[in-house]
């Protein structure tokens, strides 16, 4: 069973969480605001390796948090309560 560490509640099984998708990042080379919005909402990197994701602890504190996870090994490297609008990691 995969476990995630909720920054508020502690270590919990993955079925207590809902996956919120990749943490969106927009490349700097895209400068047009409308194009950046499209990229932010629709374009995903789908990385094979370490990626940053959003997770919602629906069975506990009911708060979103951010996790760094290796999609190959499923190892969770970091979790935090950074907001999605922050630049982190």
């Amino acid at each position: 069973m995969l476990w995630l560490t909720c920054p508020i509640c502690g270590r919990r099984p993955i079925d207590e969480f809902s996956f919120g998708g990749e943490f969106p990042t927009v490349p700097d080379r895209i400068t047009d605001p409308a194009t950046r919005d499209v990229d932010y909402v629709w374009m995903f990197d789908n990385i094979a390796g370490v990626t940053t994701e959003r997770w919602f602890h629906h069975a506990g504190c009911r708060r979103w948090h951010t996790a760094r996870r290796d999609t190959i090994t499923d190892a969770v490297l970091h979790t935090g309560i950074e907001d999605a609008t922050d630049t982190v990691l």
Partner: protein
Amino acid sequence: MLALETLHGTRIVAAPEALDALDAATWSTSVTVLRFAPDDVFVLGAETISISGEYAIVEAESGFVGCWLTDEQLAHVAEHIDWPLPVERPVLVQGFVAGVPAKIWLTSSATGERSLLLCAAPYACELTERLA
């Protein structure tokens, strides 16, 4: 079978700093302060609550049910939890209990350890049946 009853309290959503002060305040033994999240607290048994946060939301809350557990009942509940209960007291733990989102307030008093099991009211029947 557990007899879950409606818990009438006060729900406060405010800046974490404001709730830190509320959390650290000295309350009478009849008051229970449950910190659901850094910006969310549920207070049971308090007549009046003063909060300093400018944008604090303070509302009467009756959407939770719960009951105080005996040591035997807590041990039975713990068998339905995938994660270990912490040793330190007081502490609020949240997560699946028998597959139902629930919270347990673990505290100690002069008369011994006390535990309050609570969950959202719509889950009351499900939680009761699964723990029967």
